[in-house]
């Protein structure tokens, strides 16, 4: 049992207690909030479905393997083991695929190997940037955000380099 797994039950407990014992009518607040939530989500669903379908197609086409082979040498030069390249292609695309890949890497190279540790740090400090970017932007309705994706990719690249550098520096 650790802190993270207790937080959600704690929040739910707070919520339940508040609803039951508060003098204010929280039913109305909940409904207002939930309605807002639904409206926000419905407007972003079409974009979300498009993006997730595209990601599905990308994975099915085997593109990530080919791209991995092509760019591995580049990454090896900056200290990123070639075995990690499939992970860093998939990480920004899909959380479940990257978890599967991470497990795979652990099985092949062991979680305490250099590769295993770098992969862990990479997974822990980054997220599915395409999904996050698309969702947040669609929710915000921003049209002119040309610099967001290059920025996100820059942050991701920095994260990849750091993931392989920090274990060497910090031990």
């Amino acid at each position, binding site marked *: 049992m650790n802190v993270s797994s207790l937080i959600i039950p704690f929040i739910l407990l707070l919520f339940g207690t508040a609803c039951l014992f508060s003098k204010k009518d929280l039913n109305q607040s909940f409904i207002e909030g939930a309605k807002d939530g639904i409206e926000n989500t419905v407007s972003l669903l079409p*974009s979300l479905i498009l*993006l997730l379908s595209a990601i599905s197609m990308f994975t099915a086409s085997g593109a990530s393997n080919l791209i991995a082979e092509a760019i591995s040498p580049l990454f090896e030069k900056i200290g990123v083991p070639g075995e990690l390249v499939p992970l860093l292609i998939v990480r920004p695309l899909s959380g479940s695929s990257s978890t599967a890949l991470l497990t795979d890497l652990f099985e092949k190279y062991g979680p305490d190997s250099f590769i295993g540790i770098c992969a862990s740090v990479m997974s822990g400090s980054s997220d599915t940037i395409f999904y996050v970017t698309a969702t947040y932007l669609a929710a915000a309705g921003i049209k002119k955000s040309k610099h967001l994706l290059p920025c996100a990719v820059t942050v991701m690249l920095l994260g990849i380099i750091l993931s392989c550098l920090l274990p060497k520096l910090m031990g």
Partner: protein
Amino acid sequence: MTAKISGALIILSVIFSFFTGKTEALSTAAFSGCAKAVTVSLSLLGMMCLWSGIMKVAKKIGILKGFSKLLSPILALAFPKAYKDGVAKEELSSALAANILGIGNAATPIALNAISKLKSKDGKYDNDIITFTLLGCAPFCILPTTIISLRAASGSISPASVLPHIWVCSLILSVFSIALSRAVSYAVSKK
């Protein structure tokens, strides 16, 4: 933006499928992909409904004020315009807190909630939304339970040994994200 990303992904998928010979798999994915996407979307809808409601209740009973006081300095640094105008302070601090505490799935509705409060017709807080999105791409999390559990399950001698590395890495990335976003929006506004 989504159309551009999706369009690029689709083009790449088709071209590569010719090379890998997986054109059939690609066509299947074109149809099964959107079916899967609907499942994800429906789950998101449910989560948004529940957690947006919970957040509104939390706001009403005043719990969120504590969070926003605690995270004030970070809010001021990362989201200068929204902080100055006092907009969405509670929503933003809840979103940051959700990421730090590592409640993963529930963090998305809270984040979308914050964004809905920041969006406006004249795009006043767009730069802050962009910073927020960048922060969402490299979230600072105290306890990434998924990774630690995976490591433990794969037989790691010390699953939590990567924690310091993850902390340092995501901290550097978060600071970098804020700095990068503010630098770029400054540069863009100067044109």
